[in-house]
């Protein structure tokens, strides 16, 4: 091995992203976020803080929300990833996307892809009965405003669109429960 490749070892990584399989050779240092943005041209997931503190990079990995800036792609070999680009069903927007439009749940929009993916994770987690810090012990979670604020606390919005984000998520949760 020459010096250059010894300093930057790479690996072959298989990922399924929004239903499409990819086989990539990536520098081991590449995060999932950089893989999506720099290698797959999926720029929906945003790089905000790059330290897991803002949530703008949130995607679903094997159905669970995670900060893609803190995941090394090489460790995810074989995983299925859903980004904001994969939420809609063709031209039909995801109910959360419709609700964000309906409730004006953003201003600049930079945090929105992360908010949407995180909210999709919240709906799934609550449906699975996963508790949050505000869920009373022994009870199933009901996605009221308090639950949504607690569960979405890993997604910051510097425009301060929080009240409308909470309404959008709550509306979607209620519509889902009514179905």
């Amino acid at each position, binding site marked *: 091995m020459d010096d250059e490749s*010894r*300093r*930057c*070892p790479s*690996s072959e990584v298989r990922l399924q992203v929004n239903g499409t399989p990819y086989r990539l050779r990536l*520098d*081991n*240092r590449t*995060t999932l976020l950089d893989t999506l943005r720099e290698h797959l041209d999926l720029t929906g997931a945003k790089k905000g803080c*790059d*330290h*897991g503190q803002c*949530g703008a990079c*949130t995607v679903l990995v094997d159905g*669970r*929300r*995670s*900060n893609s800036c*803190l*995941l*090394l792609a*090489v*460790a995810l*070999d074989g995983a299925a990833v859903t980004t904001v680009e994969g939420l809609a069903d063709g031209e039909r927007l995801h109910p959360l996307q419709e609700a964000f439009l309906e409730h004006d749940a953003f201003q600049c929009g930079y945090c929105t892809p992360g908010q949407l993916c*995180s909210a999709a*994770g*919240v709906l799934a*987690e609550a449906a699975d*009965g*996963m*508790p*949050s*810090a505000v869920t009373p*012990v*022994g009870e199933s979670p009901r996605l009221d405003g308090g639950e949504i*604020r*607690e*569960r*979405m*606390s*890993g*997604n910051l919005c510097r425009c301060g669109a929080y009240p409308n984000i909470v309404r959008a998520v709550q509306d979607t949760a209620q519509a889902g429960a009514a179905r």
Partner: protein
Amino acid sequence: MKGFDYRRAGDPAGAVAAVAAAPGARYLAGGTNLVDLMKLGVEAPDLLVDVGRALDDRIEEGPDGSVRIGAAVRNSDLAAHPAVRRRRPALSQALLAGASGQLRNTATVGGNLLQRTRCPYFQDITKPCNRRDPGSGCPAVEGAHRDLAILGASDQCVATHPSDMAVALAALDAEAVVLGTAGQRTVPVAELHRLPGDHPERETVLEHGDLITDVLLPALPPGARSGYRKARDRASYAFALASVAAVLEVREGSVHRVALAFGAVAARPWRARTAEEALRGAPATAESFARAADAELAAARPLRDNGYKVPLTRNLTVRLLTDLAEGASR
């Protein structure tokens, strides 16, 4: 970030052999702290040995009520498990009080225990730090130490351990199962982390190559209740300024059994044995709880800007134990 080799371990023993043989190797599991520290330059491994799939990710409840937790169990799954959620609310509450939904989905139990201090000087490689760079000094003693330790610190280091989960595990008498080159042993979680003394760079009792494979929770007596209470700067998604985990069993108005641990006040989850001693057999009243907390906190040596942690920790303790005692009498 420096380049590194990556190897996925097939089993825990293979992982231990790989890391023990390479001084610059680190274990990778969830990576939520390690990857961040690599970006910051605090960690610069030349080999990552991924144990995310080699370690067990199951939770098993024994017939006696004890629980074995695989080290790769994600924080969110542990918080939701009935053996934790119903029987040991302190642990579920502590887990859910930490980090964010995204991070709890990713971070593992083993990694949570071994996460590093969030002291701002430790995380900034342009600053001295005895923990990161032995002998370089500790700017926190005179500098930004408002979030840092009041108990068990030294003039070399005033860092705190940031985990909520570990505080509850300490109060629940949890043990870490550690696999090393010499075989397997168990370490009480309350004794896993070292106090800084003259060697703050030695953060835990683990040797290079040691791997936490499981965490064991002993059975709880049926009458015991547990809880966790945390104070922080915002309502959610912030590290503790102070926190308390407790297990309490009251019989006929008196404390029959108590275990108490403080968080965010020391370099390890602080098992409050002096307070426990003061409480055994005492009336289960707010007065007893306050006296016991004061006895423990008599050892506190606050710095210029973190003296608030002393009354905060005492008040959290009194409130939590009072709530548990009232719940127990219902």
